[in-house]
């Protein structure tokens, strides 16, 4: 497979949020005005000015505490991005797919799109919208950095080796190898949609315990009518561009 991919080994993530802050720093994004809402997780959700968010979930096993799951959420840069398929129906310059890296990029022309349609098309609930400008935003894989031979800001900041970035084929190999190692002591370990996305998470338990949209799934009715239509005609379309 061409392009670049991330491997996010959640067995090593300590939710230090270095990635969350590094993203804001590189992108020069302002801080949100937050309040503690009874959780370490903040901001509460992704937003037009927050592309990367470490989600924290306290999971229970009956009435017993089980695990504190950390999920550094970001755009998965789908191999066949449904957001682009839907977006192209309105304006084919709004969402671009970088040929070299595979990054899915939102441009200024996203203001010409129907935000709800785009958000609904995303199996991972990533795109966010600015009401004032009607622009949409999300992670762009630090395409500017990557095109210049640098690591994405989040990957560079990661102290524990949770995040790796590189050529997609190699990353997939690393992910599969690591999965085998982890399965020895965590039999439920899994890779999230490894063949569909460029951001592959390794979870040590059911991915859904980490976050509702950790993996795409048919049981969550996310795909809009237009997206389903787009998906149906996808093979006929050029994959990149």
């Amino acid at each position, binding site marked *: 497979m061409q392009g670049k991919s991330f491997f996010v080994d959640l067995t090593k993530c300590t939710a230090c949020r270095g990635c969350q802050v590094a993203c804001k720093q590189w992108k020069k994004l302002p801080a949100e005005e937050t*309040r503690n809402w*009874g959780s370490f997780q903040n901001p509460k959700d992704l937003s037009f000015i927050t592309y990367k968010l470490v989600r924290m979930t*306290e999971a229970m096993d009956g009435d017993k505490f089980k695990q504190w799951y950390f999920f550094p959420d970001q755009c998965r840069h789908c191999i066949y991005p449904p957001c682009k398929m839907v977006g192209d129906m309105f304006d084919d310059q709004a969402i671009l797919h970088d040929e070299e890296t595979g990054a899915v990029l939102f441009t200024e022309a996203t203001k010409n799109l129907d935000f709800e349609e785009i958000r609904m098309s995303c199996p991972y609930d990533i795109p966010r919208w600015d009401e004032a400008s009607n622009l949409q935003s999300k992670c762009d894989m630090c395409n500017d950095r990557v095109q210049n031979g640098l690591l994405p800001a989040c990957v560079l900041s990661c102290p524990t*080796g949770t995040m790796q970035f590189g050529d997609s084929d190699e990353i997939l190999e690393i992910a599969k190898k690591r999965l085998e190692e982890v399965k020895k002591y965590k039999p439920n370990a899994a890779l999230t949609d490894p063949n569909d996305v460029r951001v592959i998470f390794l979870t040590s338990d059911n991915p859904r315990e980490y976050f509702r949209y950790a993996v795409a799934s048919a049981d969550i009715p996310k795909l809009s009518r237009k997206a389903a239509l787009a998906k149906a005609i996808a093979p006929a379309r050029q994959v990149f561009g």
Partner: protein
Amino acid sequence: MTNHYIDLMNSDCILMMGANPAENHPISFKWVMKAKEKGATLLSVDPRFTRTSARSDFFMDMRSGTDIPILGGLIKYILDNNLYFKDYVVNYTNASFLVNPDFGFDDGLFTGYDPETATYDKTTWSFQTDDQGIAKKDPSLQDPNCVFQLMKKHFERYTIDRVNETSGSSKAKLEEFYKTYAATGAPDKSGTIMYAMGWTQHTTGVQIIRAMAMIQLLLGNVGNAGGGVNALRGESNVQGSTDQALLFHIIPAYMPAPRSNLESLEAYNATTPKSPDPKSANWWQNRPKYIASLLKAMYPDQDPAVSYSYLPKLDPGQNCSWLVLFDHMNQGKFRGYFAWGQNPAASGADSQKTRDGLSKLDWLVVANVFDNETASFWKGPGMNPAEVKTEVFILPPAVFCEKEGSVTNSGRWVQWRYAGPKPMGDCITDGAMALELLRRIRALYAEEGGAFPDPIMNLNTKDVADPTKKFPHDFDSKRVAKLLNGYFVKDVKIGDTTYKAGTQVPSFAMLQDDGSTACGNWVYSGAWTEAGNNMARRDKTQTEMQANIGLFPNWSWAWPVNRRVAYNRASCDPQGKPYAPHKAVIEWDGSKWVGDVPDGGWAPGEKHPFIMTAEGYARLFGPGLADGPFPEHFEAMECPFEEHPFSSRLHNPTALEFTGEAVKRAVCDPRYPFVGTTYRVTEHWQSGVLTRWTPWLVESMPQNFVEIDPELGKLRGIESGDKVIVENMRGKIEAVAIVTPRLQPLKAMGQTIHMVGTTWHFGWVHPTDGGDSSNLLTPAVGDPNTFIPETKTFMVNIRKA
């Protein structure tokens, strides 16, 4: 740290207790995760399930302040099941030493206790000696008076039932913990401990760490790769500041501070540790060379015997530690105070007492990057500016990345940093401030005269200031670094080599006691030699043996003499063969040691490996501490109990406390039924002076919070996100509640114990809705050895705001 951060990856078992490294030392987790990848077991023991616990293989909760019962139980487990590393214990520790028959322990007290002064006369905490003065030993460890047997007797009371009853940790968890950790006693295995303020900030803090040090010695885990006793420093350069004697009881490089009863250098030198044992290296016997060289560094033109008289002297027994200083400040005993890179009004225990103390000063100088609770104390909560007489001066210092100099990490690596951006506006470096302060004081002396000008007028500035530059650019950290390394004051012949005057000393082995060498800090000797600035080295070259354990001898420089694993001679048997050949630190190749820099180059068996103790053996029996040669459990100075099952002594009988303050403390007080504790989070740093002004960090942790268990939430009608008030007799804070199953109530001694945990990162100055410092709640009581305050266990009440 005896070891260093990379070395964590060599461990078979990492115990994280009294620390929360994933959150507070995030970079360390790179190596912790590498260890795990290589098969290590990670153990997290903490009153709360933390981000560290989330990545560990094992989590055990415990009641805050019961570390000694838990660790004492582990000592008993190791001894009962013969899991100790016998050769190591016999050859390298004082287990075989015969103790003075008059030594004893009864009901929480060791022999020699004086209730009047709350101190010990340690005469009986001594060893039986032969006619040469060497300790008598029983290598069979059977003599009832030998350290091993006394230790066994002491910890007999630390049964798993009693530990469970006291700590609230379940018996099954305790057993699993003990079994897992004790397995590292196998000669080729290593286990390590990562601890921090969760251990030091108790009135039994030093004894908690001693208990762990004893465990490490029993299991042969000191000196080897992946072992050691590893204190995680809370600031990037705390190790460096300690090395330079930021504390009152030492002068640079761990020499005792001169006391007024030691009037002359000769008298000071007469207290140099001595050993009659020819096999003991007794490294501290070299101390006269180090003090003479230090004096020469401070006063190059004076004879050390004269310049010794310049040094300020503490009175015998005088305590100038933090809590005592602020107590004296409160009593109006001194007039001025420099708060340099500190925020005591938020970081000091019993913050109200600290803030009141500041108001008794005539002047206060604050050098800090941002406004903070100390600089603005006079307009803080409860203060009437019209009534505060203190004049406050604020100096704008350069930020860390704007200064050149060294930073010493927990693993003793002294790493050189270059200056990055230029300081903003009128900001200048701390060094420039100190140098200019000296010059202004000198000018005043010259103008007005004054008592005893010599120590000020003669102080060495030529090795500090660059004469080609002007204030504030003349302070030269390179010169200071060279001075710390030391140089020859005149030509000195050592063996066949003559070292020229003015050249850098190659190492502290060349320092002299006659004033012919100057050295600002003997442990830093070797950092900047004739070869150049070794701290700036970034060379990854290593031998295969070094690569095997992640040792980079050419990357920066570590004190002492670039040794990366301290006490490494103990990683080999008395023939020089590594106990763990697959991760050897050093090895005797028949003619020399290879691998790391050994603790002295003597052939195997020629000297005992613990060269920093006078006797050359590691101390299972520690006769030097204020509160006893063995650790013993006592409840915190504030606790929910009137008694505990180890003795009839409720608290540490030697703890530091202040007259009249017991009324501000809650023991078994129904008004304050919950155990309070404080901690840090990844997103903020210390009292938050730097991080609270960083918007992205405030975004991620906007306000102070209080973590409680769901049962306590129900009991008090508190839900996650509610504003709550936490209070005790010293103060109260407002914070946001996080009701979480990561905390669970514990059953201990017939009571249900709920904990209230909060951070100490916030303060009233900024952000305005962040909440005030949780140190308003913590008590000004301290460990009798270090005088560190007990901020990890105290009593509070919590209610909905």
